[in-house]
C-alpha cells in the first residue's frame, strides 16, 4: 500500500518498520514531526529530552544497551549535541544508532543557516541524504545496516524540503524488534585516553571500509543520458536537476560521506561538462575538486538559500549556452528562465503573536519600562517585531540568561535596566545552567520565565515542566520557583501574565534589586484554550489608539467610525487591552 508522507513521517515509518526501539529528540523545526509520528507507534519508546545533548546521550545509552535507536534534531540542535556525538563516533554502537539532522536552507524557521553535512567528516561518521520521502524511509534501513556493520553512528541528513514535503511511500510490515544481549565492554564504551587512542585508529580503518562500501552502494547511482553534460548532486537538489535538465546525465549521491571517489572519477570521464548541484556549501564540490576533477558549482550557484528548478535552468543554462552551445538548453526551458515580475505591492504579513498570547502584555510592560532585553528562541522572539520591539538580543537556545550575565559584567550600569526573557521549554533546554552562572558569579540579573506551560512555537510539545510525556503518560512537574530557589536565587516571584499592573510592579522591584531575581509570568498558550471566555467589547472609543500598541491581531481601527473594532472570533478575552485603555472603552464581553 502506498501513502503520501512527509519526509519526517517517512522516517518515523522507517523507524517502525526497521526495528527502532528507542527514539529521543528536542522539538525544532523542521525536525519536530519525526518524534511526533514515532510516538504513534507504541512499540517504540519515544521521548522529548530537555535538549539535544541529552537526547543524543539517551540515544547512545540505548544503543549500548542493544536497541536500534534514532535521535532527531534540527541543524542548530546538532551543535548542542556535538559533544556526545563526537565521542559516540569513537565508541561506536551495539544496536544501530541514527542521528537525523534536519537542516533549514533559506532559514524558514531558524536563527542561522548551516550545512550540517560538514559534521560527517568532522565527526568521522557516515552520512546519508535522501531525495524524497520513499528514500527517507529506505535510508532508515540502510543507516541501521551501516551502523551495525561498521560499528558507527550514522548521520541521516535532510533539509526542510525533504522534511516537510509529501511524496508517495510504499508501506511495509514491521520487522521483529530485538534488543541485543548486553555485555560489558569497557574498552569500547569507556573513553578514557588509553581506550580512545585505540578507537582513534579504528576510526581511520572504518572510514576506509566505508569508502569501499560507498563505491558499491546502490544509494550512489548513475543515470546516463547525454554525454555532453553531467551533474553530480544529492538530497532534494536531485529532484530539481531531474526536472530542470531531463537530458542530463546524473550521478546521484545518497551516501555523501565518505563519497565514492572512483565512481565520481568514472562519471567525470564520461561527460564533457561536469556540474555539482548542491544547496548551501560547496561540500561535494571541494571534495571532487580535490580529486583533480574540473567541475562547475558555486561559481554559478549561491552558497546560501534554497535552489530551485528555475535557478538551475537560468544559471547552468546560461553557462552552457556560452561554454558549450551544442548542448544549449531548449526553448521550452528558456521560457522558464525569464524572470517573473511581481505585479502588485502587498503589505507584508509578518508572523505575529497569536490573539490572547500571554507574552504580549509582559512585553508591553517591558517596553513601557524601556528595559534592555536579552532574548531567547521561541514564540516570544516575536516580541522583537513592531509594535512591541521589546528585544535587544537573540542568539541561541538558553543564551538569554548567560548573555545577560556577560552584558552586566561588561557594563555594570546595565544591571539596573536589564532583563532576560526565556520561555518555559527553553529554560528547561538550557536556561537552568545559565541561571546557575547568574547566581554563582554574583550578578543582579533579572530573569523572566514566560511560562505558557508548553513548547509552543513548534506546535505544543511537552517538556519536564508540563507533567506529561511524549507517550502521553503523566509525570512529575518541575516547579520552576523551587528549582530557582534551589540554585540559590533568593528572590523568586510568580505573577499572572495577564495582570499588567502586578507584572509591572514586580519587574520594577526585581530589576532594582541588587541580586539575582526570577519572575515566573504564567498563563497557558492561547491556542490550548478554546472558547473559554467572552470576547472584549469596545464602546464609546475615544480614538486614542493606545490599545493598538500591543499589536493584537483582534484589534483594528475603523477610520470612518473613529472607533476601535474588536474581531470577535479572534478575541480570546485575555483582557490585556482592557487594562491599557485609559477611558474604559474596552470592556469585558457580556459586562
Amino acid at each position, binding site marked *: 500500500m502506498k501513502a503520501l508522507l512527509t519526509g519526517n513521517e517517512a522516517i518515523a515509518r522507517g523507524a517502525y518498520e526497521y526495528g527502532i526501539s528507542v527514539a529521543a529528540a528536542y522539538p525544532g523545526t523542521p525536525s519536530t514531526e519525526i518524534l511526533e509520528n514515532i510516538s504513534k507507534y507504541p512499540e517504540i519508546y519515544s521521548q522529548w529530552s530537555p535538549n539535544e545533548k541529552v537526547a543524543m546521550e539517551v540515544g547512545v545509552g540505548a544503543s549500548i544497551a542493544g536497541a536500534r535507536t534514532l535521535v532527531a534534531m534540527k541543524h542548530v540542535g546538532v551543535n548542542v549535541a556535538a559533544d556526545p556525538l563526537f565521542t559516540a563516533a569513537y565508541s561506536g554502537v551495539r544496536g544501530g544508532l541514527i542521528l537525523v539532522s534536519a537542516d533549514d536552507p533559506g532559514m524558514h*524557521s531558524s536563527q542561522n543557516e548551516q550545512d550540517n553535512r560538514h559534521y560527517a567528516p568532522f565527526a568521522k561518521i557516515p552520512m546519508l541524504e535522501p531525495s524524497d520521502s520513499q528514500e527517507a524511509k529506505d535510508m532508515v534501513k540502510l543507516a541501521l545496516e551501516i551502523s551495525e556493520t561498521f560499528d558507527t553512528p550514522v548521520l541521516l541528513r535532510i533539509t526542510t*524540503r525533504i522534511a516537510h514535503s509529501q*511524496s508517495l511511500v510504499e508501506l511495509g510490515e514491521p520487522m521483529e524488534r530485538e534488543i541485543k544481549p548486553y555485555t560489558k565492554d569497557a574498552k569500547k564504551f569507556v573513553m578514557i585516553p588509553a581506550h580512545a587512542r585505540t578507537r582513534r585508529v579504528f576510526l581511520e580503518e572504518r572510514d576506509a571500509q566505508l569508502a569501499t562500501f560507498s563505491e558499491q552502494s546502490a544509494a550512489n547511482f548513475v543515470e546516463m543520458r547525454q554525454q555532453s553534460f553531467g551533474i553530480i548532486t544529492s538530497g532534494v537538489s536531485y*529532484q530539481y536537476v531531474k526536472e530542470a535538465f531531463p537530458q542530463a546525465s546524473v550521478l546521484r549521491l545518497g551516501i555523501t560521506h565518505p563519497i565514492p571517489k572512483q565512481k565520481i572519477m568514472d562519471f567525470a570521464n564520461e561527460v564533457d561538462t561536469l556540474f555539482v548541484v548542491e544547496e548551501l556549501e560547496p561540500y561535494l564540490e571541494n571534495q571532487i575538486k580535490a580529486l583533480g576533477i574540473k567541475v562547475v558549482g558555486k561559481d554559478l550557484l549561491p552558497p546560501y538559500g534554497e535552489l530551485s528548478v*528555475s535557478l538551475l535552468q537560468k544559471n547552468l543554462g546560461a553557462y552552457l549556452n556560452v561554454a558549450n552551445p551544442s548542448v544549449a538548453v531548449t526553448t521550452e526551458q528558456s521560457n*522558464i528562465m525569464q524572470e517573473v515580475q511581481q505585479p502588485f505591492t502587498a*503589505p507584508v*504579513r509578518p508572523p505575529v503573536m497569536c490573539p490572547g498570547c500571554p507574552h504580549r502584555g509582559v512585553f508591553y510592560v517591558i517596553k513601557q519600562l524601556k528595559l534592555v532585553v536579552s532574548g531567547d528562541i521561541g514564540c516570544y522572539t*516575536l516580541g522583537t517585531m513592531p509594535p512591541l520591539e521589546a528585544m535587544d538580543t537573540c542568539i541561541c537556545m538558553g543564551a538569554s540568561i548567560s548573555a545577560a550575565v556577560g552584558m552586566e559584567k561588561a557594563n555594570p550600569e546595565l544591571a539596573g535596566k536589564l532583563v532576560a526573557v526565556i520561555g518555559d521549554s527553553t529554560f528547561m533546554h538550557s536556561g537552568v545552567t545559565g541561571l546557575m552562572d547568574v547566581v554563582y558569579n554574583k550578578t543582579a540579573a533579572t530573569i523572566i520565565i514566560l511560562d505558557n506551560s508548553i513548547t509552543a512555537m513548534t506546535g505544543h510539545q511537552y517538556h519536564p515542566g508540563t507533567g506529561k510525556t511524549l507517550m502521553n503518560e503523566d509525570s512529575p512537574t518541575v516547579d520552576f520557583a523551587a528549582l530557582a530557589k534551589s540554585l540559590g536565587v533568593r528572590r523568586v516571584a510568580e505573577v499572572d501574565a495577564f495582570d499588567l499592573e502586578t507584572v509591572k510592579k514586580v519587574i520594577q522591584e526585581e530589576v532594582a534589586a541588587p541580586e539575582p531575581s526570577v519572575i515566573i509570568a504564567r498563563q497557558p498558550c492561547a491556542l490550548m484554550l478554546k472558547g473559554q471566555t467572552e470576547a472584549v467589547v469596545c464602546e464609546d472609543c475615544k480614538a486614542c489608539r493606545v490599545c493598538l500598541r500591543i*499589536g493584537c491581531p483582534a484589534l483594528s481601527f475603523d477610520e470612518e467610525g473613529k472607533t476601535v473594532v474588536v474581531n470577535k472570533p479572534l478575541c480570546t478575552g485575555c483582557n490585556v487591552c482592557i487594562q491599557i485603555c485609559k477611558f474604559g472603552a474596552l470592556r469585558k464581553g457580556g459586562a
Partner: protein
Amino acid sequence: MSGVLNILFVGVGGQGAILASKILSHVALSKGWDVKLSEIHGMAQRGGSVVTQVRMGEIVFSPTIEAGDVHILVAFEKLEAYRWAHMLKKDGKAIVNDQRIEPLPVLIGAAKYPDSILDDLNSSIQNVTVIPALDLATEAGNAKATNVVLMGILAAHMDIPLERWQEALEAKVPAKLLEVNKKAFMAGYNFAVK
C-alpha cells in the same frame, strides 16, 4: 514541465490551507497520479502567511512550483491572492476568497490594505473567480469550513468526478464535521457552476 498540474494554496495561518491540500492530494491519488506537496511553516502559529504547493501528474520531481508556473491559485484571503499572483501561468486561473484579514502592519496603522485588489486582479489575470467563501461556509453551518467551500470551487475547475471529492472529504475530515463540510463543499461547487 508538461503533464504536471501545479496548484498553489495561499492564505493566513489558521484558515485551513493545509487540510485543503490534503483533500486535494487524496483526490489526485485516487486518480492514480504521482503527487508531491510542499508546505513551509515558520514562527507564528496564527496570523502569518501560509503557502502550500501541490503538484500532480504522471511523475513529479521537484516538490516546489516555479514562479509563473501555477495552473490554479486558490487564495483563502484576497491580499494573499495579490501577493502570490505572480506565481500564475499567463493563462492560469485564480480562485479568490473575498475575505479581508488585515496583517498586523495594517492593524497598527503602519501600512495600508489595498482597496483595489479585486479590480486589479480582474484586470491583470484572465480567469478570476471571486467567491464570498466565508459567507457560504457560515450559511452551510460552520464559518470554519471556508476552506472546503473553496475546494468546491476548485472541484468545479477540475475534470474529476464529484464522487472522488466526496470520498476525499470522508477520508480527511473528522466524522462529526463531515456533514457540514459536505454542505460547504457543495455550496462552493454550486456557486461555481451556476
